[in-house]
């Protein structure tokens, strides 16, 4: 289980690919669920439990549920699946090919330095730490929103209100 975050990152990329290849929204919703859950697990593995809880509750349990219901109401007779487009197959094959090339390169040479250093898997390995941390950055950040930067909370609330207003205004029509 040392490579937990590494494996979860692979699943994250695959599920991101599954909805960005634009199948019918039902299949895209499945990809969103998986990518949301896996993303939460990754950040919870790094210790940020509050953000993970927020994403599970609000994103998956609120927004994605509403999205699923509206898509089920507005779906079409022959939705586009993952296997029906040549793009998915081509991306899958080229991804597998590049993964094989990467492994061959890493076995031959000492590491790879393109944009970030990729020498070992040390930043992806999760060491089990026995202590506990008193300072929780994520929940302290939310409380700081109410305390130190309360004008920023006003701006954030205004942005949310205006975004709903804009969506309603754009789809109003004549």
């Amino acid at each position: 289980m040392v490579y937990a975050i590494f494996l979860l990152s692979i699943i994250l990329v695959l599920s991101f690919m599954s909805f960005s290849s634009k199948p019918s929204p039902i299949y895209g919703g499945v990809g969103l669920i998986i990518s949301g859950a896996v993303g939460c697990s990754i950040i919870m593995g790094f210790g940020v439990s509050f953000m993970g809880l927020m994403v599970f509750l609000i994103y998956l349990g609120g927004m994605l549920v509403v999205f699923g219901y509206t898509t089920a109401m507005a779906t079409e007779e022959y939705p586009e699946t993952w296997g029906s487009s040549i793009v998915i197959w081509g991306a899958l094959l080229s991804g597998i090919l590049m993964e094989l090339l990467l492994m061959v390169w890493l076995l031959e040479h000492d590491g790879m330095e393109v944009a970030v250093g990729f020498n070992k898997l040390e930043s992806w390995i999760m060491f089990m730490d026995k202590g506990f941390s008193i300072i929780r950055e994520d929940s302290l950040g939310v409380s700081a929103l109410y305390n130190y930067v309360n004008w920023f909370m006003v701006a954030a609330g205004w942005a949310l209100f205006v975004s709903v207003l804009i969506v309603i205004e754009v789809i109003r029509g004549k």
Partner: protein
Amino acid sequence: MKLPILTIIMTTIFTGTMLTMISSHWLLIWIGLEINMLSIIPILTKNQKPRSTEAATKYFLTQATASMLLMFTIVFNAMHSGQWTTTNIDPNNMIVSLTMIIALTMKLGMTPFHFWVPEVTQGVSLMTGMLLLTWQKLAPISIMMQMFTSINPIILLLIALMSVLVGGWGGLNQTQLRKILAYSSIAHMGWMMAILTFCPSLTMLNLLIYLMLTIIMFTMLNMNTNMTTLTLSNLWNKSPTITMMILISLLSLGGLPPLTGFLPKWIIIQELTKNNNIAMATVMAIMALLNLYFYMRLIYSTSLTLFPTPNNIKMKWQFQPKKRSLFLSPLIILSTLTLPLSPVLSTLN
């Protein structure tokens, strides 16, 4: 659009740009850009035609991509340098400086990310196009002026040179006035960014003069709702004063002395030659002639010749003007006659 909603949306557009301009933390800058982009979408779709919807979609996709790249650069910079201020980006970090330039020039509409500017400007009304070409440039330029010491000058000069080229050659085949002004905006952005790494005060000077000229051009075109060159050629009969003002404003936009539009080009060429960049200055000055050519073609059909029209009588029943034109006279004077004030620039910081 109902008045309270229009007020809220206009306030939010203003708030977004102001938030970007007053912030020194990268996250707030990005938030201001997002608020600005989101609240200008209903302004673009205000007149409910399919073309406006297409223009709003193109605008949204391009700007969202640029914001996404900017967010990537912000997080990358925070990861590598550990701080979120605007002025302390490490110029040796190639990824940050490159993708920052790409994100900000995509927001401004410079080459090679200029393809959305003519199409979006053509798909919306004249006043909305003016808002797009003037107010939306303020926020990205304010970011670039805060971080100009960490920009890679070679890439920025390349982008600026290509923008001047595309702005000149792209506008040659156009008869629609909104597309002509969009290509003029691309070329002027090229001039502004060419001098950014050498002397950012001149970017500000060029921006101010370009803003005045663009506002006055759009206002004068809006007074009789001229969208094409053909309708401009009937303008001599309807309002001869606007014909004259279009002449001098277009000549100023093209950069002819002794009008104000010559001032930024002159000083930019001077600063480029002071920094041993003579080839760039020469090529940009020659390419500005292409801009001047299509402005001259507009002036030719507007003021200098009379096209064959169904109405050749000089008398016309004049009606009361229905469109408000704020600040028409002061802006015309400011944008064409202030070249003798150029020594005041030596007193600026």
